[in-house]
């Protein structure tokens, strides 16, 4: 980090005394500015501009082709009274709730099991992580066949057990459970790997000390493991909230743009896609995007308050331990 002032000047600069005496930053450091510039240029064009433009769009009525018409807050007023939007919000939250709690619980159990001295740990990690890197389109098609109402694998198993079949893909709850199962399947291993890394960052001395004091396994788990994992748990809760709120591929591939029976699988992003790219209502699509952003921000704040307090110290400790390993 200390190479700052000695950055090589170009030959051109060295030959002119004037620039050597008062070099402008740009002349002297142009290679560095050039090196970091691609990100900022791309961000301005494909990041910042679209966001500002989408605020603008959300106050317009526009089908993407004809004239834009300024409508003020009308899109937002419509949004607040739009039962389909609120249905999508409700669906998204139910699916998020149905998936996140079992997912994080399973992940914690798997991490706890993998943290013990067992063979084949490398293989297990790859096996648990595999669902996370797979094409969700392909796997949504696979899950669609597994949960198929009439001939699916799950219902065939239920028939074999003489239990009545469940119409997974044509009832409101069935659709939500199927999507939640896909989310659980995809992200349990991912979260388990993250918990495992968190467990490995906890100093073993703490466990040794607790054992000497005669603490039970459950006591150790609840009084040492969980509190010290809090920052990691916060991370997984936040990422799975963001992921859950932006759910799109699973319901879209499984149920199509309409969201299935009674729009039971219509999520917020699917509704946004639906309005913007199949109904060509770009203004309303932008308003939905901003509503989603507000909901996500509220959630991030609530999460932070609930799980995140008093964790500054622990995060720092995690970093230090990790840097040492």
């Amino acid at each position: 980090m200390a190479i700052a002032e000695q950055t090589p000047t170009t030959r051109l600069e060295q030959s002119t005394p004037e620039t050597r005496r008062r070099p402008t930053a740009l002349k002297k450091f142009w290679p560095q500015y050039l090196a970091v510039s691609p990100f900022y240029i791309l961000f301005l064009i494909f990041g910042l501009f679209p966001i500002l433009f989408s605020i603008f769009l959300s106050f317009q009525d526009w089908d993407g082709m004809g004239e834009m018409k300024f409508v003020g807050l009308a899109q937002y007023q419509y949004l607040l009274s739009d039962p389909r939007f609120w249905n999508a919000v409700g669906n998204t939250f139910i699916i998020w709730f149905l998936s996140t709690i079992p997912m994080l619980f399973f992940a914690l159990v798997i991490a706890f099991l993998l943290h013990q001295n067992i063979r084949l740990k490398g293989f297990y990690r790859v096996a648990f992580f595999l669902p996370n890197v797979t094409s969700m389109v392909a796997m949504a098609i696979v899950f669609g066949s597994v949960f198929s109402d009439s001939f699916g694998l799950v219902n065939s198993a239920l028939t074999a057990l003489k239990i009545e079949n469940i119409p997974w893909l044509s009832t409101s709850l069935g659709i939500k459970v199927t999507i939640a199962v896909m989310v659980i399947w995809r992200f349990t291993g991912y979260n388990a790997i993250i918990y495992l890394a968190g467990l490995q960052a906890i100093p073993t001395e703490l466990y040794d000390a607790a054992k000497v004091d005669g603490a039970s396994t459950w006591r150790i788990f609840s009084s040492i493991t969980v509190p010290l994992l809090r920052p990691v748990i916060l991370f997984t809760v936040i990422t799975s909230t963001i992921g859950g709120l932006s759910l799109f591929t699973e319901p879209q591939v499984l149920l199509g743009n309409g969201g299935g029976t009674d729009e039971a699988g219509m999520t917020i992003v699917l509704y946004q896609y639906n309005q913007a790219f199949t109904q060509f209502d770009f203004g309303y699509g932008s308003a939905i995007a901003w509503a989603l952003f507000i909901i996500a921000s509220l959630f991030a704040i609530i999460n932070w308050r609930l799980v995140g307090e008093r964790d500054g110290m622990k995060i720092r400790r995690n970093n230090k331990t990790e840097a040492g390993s």
Partner: protein
Amino acid sequence: MSNATLTRPQLADPTQARQDRNAVKRSMVARVVTHLCIWVGVIMSIFPFYWLVVMSTNTTGDIFGYPPKLTFGPHLLENLHNVIANVDLLQSLANTVFVSLSCALLVMFFDSLAAFAFAKYHFPGKNVLFMILLVTFLIPGSLSLVPSFVLVSKLGWIGGFQSLIIPGAANAFGIFLLRQFATSSIPDELVESARIDGAGFFRTYWNVGVPMLRGGLAFLGIFTFIGAWNDYVWPLIVLVDPKRQTLQTALQTLNTIYSTDYGMVMAGALISVLPLIGVFIIGSRHFISNIAAGALKG
């Protein structure tokens, strides 16, 4: 000898011998339960892949018969042949490989260049620029779906692969990650001695920075490749020409049009998944540990 569920294996200690004998019995049970739970999880993780292969090797009648056929059948080649005859899936495969490779290479290049400058040089405004970079992490992607589409169509990029490749050619996540790598793994002395030898910034980047960032670059490359391969909603919006689809959009087209021939659809799904699994397993060591490390830092 104790199973040491939480602690490291303990050293042999005569006073603990009796306790240990009791513990052995308990630990045997614990060990069996542990492995049982892990294997249930592993099977749940892998089963959908197995089922995908089973379905792509059977006819639709076998898949949806009762009881369903749970083992491999002889119809894989037939199903693959049907896919290729009905949809240009090989073209989609080539498109996807091209897009994913381009994304990975561009991201590796631009991100490492910026990360190297941020980690090893001082220049006016550096801290402000880096703060801006960190703030961009907070911006969710779905916010710009509509306006990005408008922008890309105004540029005349609709249907072109540049709309998939260019917007993400440099990203904040990769720069942040590689900067961490560069700060800790490239010694200042090395950069200094390159300077004394007369190397400029770009030469130093290429001869010192790139070789020493290999580990981080490998991870970023695999991560970006997998992400680009699996991207769905953006290609769905901008790739309107059936000849220029990626595997994900082609597969969904296949699914909606030919859903009656499940064996064929599954053969298509297999084509879209297999190369990816190969890339992941080859790079899994880098991949998994870095994902976890990123989470702890975040």
